[in-house]
């Protein structure tokens, strides 16, 4: 299971692997004495090959040796009638070798129709969200998925992230919709296609720390008019019929 390591600066490569350190381990010295230099180098290369393969296929083990961080999590909230569609895009930076890591990302309890747009391979549903594999190349990898949550006219969406995030930005979309991120900071709104989109950001979100997004003025469908209009029609027709029957009975 991938737990994001502590955030590091980009120019800080982190501790070097043991075979790149200057210290020559005693077992290596013993091997050179026992098998000769060339054979020892061959054996060491062979063992390193196995280790690198293991790094690639055993993410939990590999995580301990690589620098991965989530620099930005962009959360776009699209308000639709009776529900919001939330798209999340993660910018994951991998300073180490390309590898595949297993992730489990929790989602809000009422999330439905989870769709994977980018970055997640073989996703499976889990108790609290979804699990999957992310193939990380060296540098930046983008991961994007979306889901929907049923809503009323106002909602508080609580998002608990399973990893540390350097910066999280929340963007809202939908006429009349106002949003606020608890403990967050409001940014200048952006205008896309003539539509003003409010933005909030929160920095240094720790794994497990809840992020609360409050939404007000969400569109809610009112389903009264078909019944109301049909009821009105019934009243009009009944009155017409009643008038017809009454006038018929009054005829001599």
């Amino acid at each position, binding site marked *: 299971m991938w737990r994001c390591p502590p955030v590091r600066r980009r120019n800080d490569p982190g501790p070097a692997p043991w075979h790149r350190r200057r210290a020559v381990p005693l077992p290596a010295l013993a091997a050179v004495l026992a098998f000769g230099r060339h054979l020892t180098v061959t054996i060491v290369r062979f063992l390193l090959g196995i280790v690198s393969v293991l790094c690639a296929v055993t993410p939990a083990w590999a995580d301990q040796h690589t620098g991965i961080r989530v620099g930005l999590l962009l959360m776009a909230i699209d308000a639709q009638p*009776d529900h919001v569609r939330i798209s999340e895009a993660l910018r994951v930076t991998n300073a180490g070798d390309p590898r595949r890591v297993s992730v489990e990302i929790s989602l809000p309890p009422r999330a439905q129709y989870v769709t994977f747009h980018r970055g997640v391979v073989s996703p499976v549903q889990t108790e609290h969200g979804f699990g999957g594999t992310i193939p990380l190349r060296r540098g930046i990898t983008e991961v994007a998925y979306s889901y929907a949550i049923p809503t009323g006219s106002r909602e508080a969406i609580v998002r608990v992230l399973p990893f540390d995030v350097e910066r999280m930005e929340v963007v809202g979309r939908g006429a009349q919709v106002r949003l606020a991120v608890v403990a967050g900071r409001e940014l200048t709104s952006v205008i896309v296609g003539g539509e003003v989109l409010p933005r909030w950001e929160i920095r240094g979100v720790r794994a497990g720390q809840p992020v609360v997004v409050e939404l007000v003025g969400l569109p809610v469908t009112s389903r009264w008019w078909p019944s109301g209009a049909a009821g009105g029609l*019934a009243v009009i*027709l009944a009155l017409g019929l009643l008038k017809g029957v009454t006038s018929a009975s009054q005829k001599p």
Partner: protein
Amino acid sequence: MADLGSFALLAGLVVCVYGVVAAVIGIRTRERRFVETSLRAVRAWAALMVLASGTLMFALVTRHFRLEFVAAVTSRDLPLVYTVAAFWGGHAGSLLLWALILGLYGIVILRGLRSSPQMYAPVALVLLVTAGFFTWLLAFTSNPFTVMQIPPPDGRGLNPLLKNPWMSIHPPTLYLGFVGMTVPFALAVAGVLTGLTAEWIKLARRWMMIAWIFLTLGLLFGAKWSYVVLGWGGYWAWDPVENAALMPWLTSTAFLHSIQVQERRGLLGAWNVSLMIISFVLAIFGTFLTRSGVMSSVHAFADSSIGVYFLIFLGLVLASSGWLLLARWDRFRQGGSLDALLSRESAFLLNNLVLVAAAFVIFTGTVFPIIAEAFTGDRINVGPPYFNQVMAPLVILLLVLMGTAPLLAWRKADAQSFGRAVSAPAAVAILAGLGFAALGVRSPGALAVLALGLFVAGAVAVELLHGVRILRTHGEPAAVAVGRLLLNNRRRYGGYVVHLGILLILTGVTMSSAYATQVQVTLRPGEQTSLGGYTLRYHDAQAWRLPGLQITSTTVSVSTGPRPLGLLRPQHVYHEVQDQATSEIALRSTWWNDLYLVLVGVSPDRRATFRIIVNPLVTWIWFGGGVILTGTLIALVPATRRRDVPEVRRDVAVPAGAKAQ
């Protein structure tokens, strides 16, 4: 969009109630304005159903997945033709189709009643009560405009088995038949209330024929779909859903014969009204069988409220129409009685009894599992052996009547003349039977159908020749006489063409049932096998993926003797979204037989298992359907004014003649 559809349904229900009240007042007070109000209600209801259907169709085409129905039956990759067909691909949509067709029928029948305005109110009443029932089901139990709070990004897609051109036309055609039974039923009620006039007979016959031809085509389209899609090599399995459509077909066929007795002799009025009622009840019963879930299990029926509502509606229809029939029984007493046992009306009566008996045995076999399960808790299946055994003698009896009835005169047939007329077709039949037996046809059923089929065809020929002979005595050249005879007796000769179509179907059914051969073989690439004169060589298998599909295809070359006939490519398709596998059969049809190839599976070492079936004369079944359609259209074309055509009276004892209508 959902709101507009829901409004159309609710408003339709309101309009139905309003129209029913107006029609009842109109019938009681005979005030014209109430009658006209009820007619307007029928039209308004039809317009609202058009609105609801248009809204649903728009939602389907635009993939409005917020509607539960749209999400259940379509997906983004569904081709447009199947998106349209998805309208009736689900329960709620098919009920809306019922309502839409009823609305359109309502508008047309009201236009056709201009010459009988006294029937307006009763017809409108029946149409609106039926419409109200279906609108109520649509509005409150099976609403196609039910909205999901969150629309899915994509729909589940249409059932793969329904993605077939035949399935695109089978349900609407069948529904045109089922719903069409409402119009004769409405006319039956109107007839009981206002009198069975000559105009009533004309209307009843015409509308029953319209419903009948759609039911016939619906049955044949369904059989064709079953044949080319389900991959079992057959087209009729005595499935309850199939039986549900066959029962009203049989009773309406009986009506189309017995109405002629009423038209000619003024007899069988009550019987005809009863047949119209029964046909409608069986059409509703068919919809109940297919929609209530009762056929899968009694418990499924108990869980579904719609089945209970259907039963209540059926009970109300039976009780009210039965009461009406008994209350107005004196209207039917003025008819006479049969003059002789050897007469055309007797033959028609016997034909009616056989057809109704056939409907009854099918009904018994269909509902027996339900009743047995309700009482014992165990499901007992009544399969094809029961239906084949009980239907075979009835079909043979019907063939005898089909051959003899045209040769019998109305009122009283002269035995000697009848004997003379029947001798030639009977001789042909006997000789043909012996000939077929000599050719190796050993199945008694097949021999009987083949021989009697020729007997019927011979009888039609005798009838035609007799008419031509009479016209030729008036100086007509033979070709002109034939043309004039057909043109001026469209109903009669249209009926005979329909009989020929029935013969073709019966021949195809009998021969393909008795003489189909099949084998299941596993072949390596390059190996070959033979069946029924065909040699099949398996070349290779290929597998590929399309979005949502895993396709395995094989290539098989077919030859007969040294002559190559081409390549067949049976496929096996796995539909990932629905987790369902289908067989795409390969078919090579000729007039004499069908080579039907099903890919059962391909093993990793490329060995392929095929089921190969050679079905004789199946093409005759589909061709017979075309012949029936042609005959019905001939019979439906209104008669033109006859000029200079000598009338051959049929109410005297002549063996056969040229007069009709």
